[in-house]
């Protein structure tokens, strides 16, 4: 196909840049290719290679075949981390949509101040996850923070309550933080989807006597399929890779109950320095995410006759 390209080039383009000079294109893309090879392709190949080895940080590494993968099967803490990651992903995605969808409906119609509202809702999205986590670790602190002392001063609780000491309040605090940070982002994507629905379709349905709920179900939701899928995928992929907030706010605690998959890989690779084992764990995570990408491509396929 690539050799045909020169032959099938439109005559004008050929006159523009001679066939021989087309090769110069390679020079233009070479730096990008070099970076991808050095910082992506080689590391990717090495991950697969290392996963078959016992690979300490110092000293010689030795081939162990599928040993690391067999060890993963028995690694209950990894499976716990995966289970927790899945649980977190489901809950946080639902929570984000519950907040972001009404916000998208709210800012979709132009009215005075809409632009200001959009900007305000979106602001936390440009702040980094690390900054947001540091900020909330302070707000959530039992003595110097905001939530517990404020509730105490208002007389809502009779003793200061440490939100980060037990699983449930700690988990829901993280959910609140992530929703605060991400909802504006999801809102903008959903808003773009809403705005792409032709107005006359809605009007025709009003004339046919369809109520707001029926219109939402029969027009809005189906026509937003690709947008919804995109927002969903972004949220799911981001959540599966969650690390910053659990590391910074909770250190994986209380009692290691909030270790996510990436966190566990980080611990194995860079705390225990079991690089080979960490690589094998990474391969498992990688397969999960590539599978997810394939689902994504399927969900985002261009609408066909059915739509």
């Amino acid at each position, binding site marked *: *196909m*690539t*050799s045909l390209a*020169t032959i099938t080039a439109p005559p004008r383009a050929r006159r523009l*840049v001679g066939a021989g000079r*087309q*090769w*110069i*294109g*390679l*020079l*233009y*893309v070479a*730096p990008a*290719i070099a*970076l*991808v090879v*050095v*910082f*992506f392709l*080689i*590391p*990717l190949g*090495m*991950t697969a290679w*290392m996963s078959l080895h016992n690979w300490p940080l110092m000293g010689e590494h030795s081939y162990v075949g599928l040993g690391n993968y067999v060890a993963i099967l028995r690694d209950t803490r990894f499976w716990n981390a995966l289970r927790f990651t899945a649980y977190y992903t489901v809950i946080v995605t639902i929570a984000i949509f519950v907040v972001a969808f009404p*916000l998208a409906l*709210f800012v979709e119609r132009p009215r005075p*101040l809409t632009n200001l*509202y959009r*900007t305000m*809702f*979106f*602001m*936390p999205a*440009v*702040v*980094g996850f*690390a*900054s947001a986590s*540091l*900020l909330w*670790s*302070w*707000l959530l602190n039992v003595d*110097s*923070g905001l939530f517990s002392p*404020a509730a105490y*001063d208002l007389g809502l609780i009779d003793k200061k309550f440490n939100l980060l000491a037990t699983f449930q309040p700690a988990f829901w605090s993280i959910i609140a933080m992530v929703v605060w940070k991400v909802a504006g982002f999801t809102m903008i*994507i959903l808003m773009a989807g809403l705005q792409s629905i032709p107005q006359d379709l809605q009007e025709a349905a009003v004339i046919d006597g369809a109520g707001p709920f029926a219109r939402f179900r029969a027009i809005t939701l189906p026509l937003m399929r690709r947008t919804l899928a995109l927002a969903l995928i972004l949220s799911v992929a981001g959540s599966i890779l969650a690390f*910053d907030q659990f*590391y*910074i706010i909770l250190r994986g605690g209380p009692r290691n109950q909030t270790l996510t998959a990436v966190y566990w890989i980080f611990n194995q*690779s860079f705390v225990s320095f079991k*690089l080979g084992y*960490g690589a094998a764990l*990474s391969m498992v*995570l990688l397969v999960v*995410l590539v599978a997810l*990408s394939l689902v994504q491509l399927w969900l985002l396929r261009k609408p066909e006759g059915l739509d």
Partner: protein
Amino acid sequence: MAQAASPNRRLLASIGEHSTGIIASVLFAAPIVWAVLSAFKPAAEARLPPLPPWPTSGFSLENYATLNSFGDGLWVSAQNSIYVSVMTVLLSVAVSVLAGYGFSRFRFPFKDLFFILILSTIMIPFQSILTPIFLVLTKLGLHNTLTGLVGVYVTLQLPFSIFMMRNAFDAVPREIEEAARMDGAGNLTMLLKVMLPLVWPGVVTIALFAFLGAWNEFLAALVLMTDQSKFTLPVMMTALQSGRFGAIDWGAVQAGVTVMMVPCLILFLVLQRFYIRGLMAGAIK
């Protein structure tokens, strides 16, 4: 529905809508405002719960001064963050403009394969290849250097920014190049003098995303930068917040978080339309 409503009801509905909007805006802005204001309290006051958030015993920059005394100091980390972010912006713009132009205007062997290869890197999370990246950097003698971190960050930006730049160049009519070529412009002159002014909105967009990406990134910096003098702001602040420098000084955390957030917020507010543009372009993909 609106035509049937009486003016009174319409007014009520409007009041309801705007109260919702204002309350929600306050909720979203509150944590940011709280931290920025609290950072200006004197150290003794910053230890207490932030009620009210503004300083009551006088405005002070004490927290920023304290922050600068931890480890190698705020200023060193801020410089590292600025260096890494600016270099990431410059390099990813340079590499992506060249590649975008190459993919848009030339035909060469394996062109489609290369393009798909670059785009598909987005499917593999960099979190899963960090260990080998660490080893590759060591081999290259870039272990524990800001340059190495820049290399990783630029590569992370490539799928998005090359995609953006190729589209931007595709949108430029070929007639413009023909005219310039008649005047005897070479390839590189053409790119810099004729094409670049036409695709600059795309350049601003990818520069903005590169800056935010590099400025905010945490995990790679945490893993790859082991020497305190090389810490970027998120890594340094996390070390401080974890009590690595003794008792946690929440006033210093507020000051550090402010330094981390404010550049992002200013850039976003000034360049908002470029940000949304990039978001939409990425979304339509």
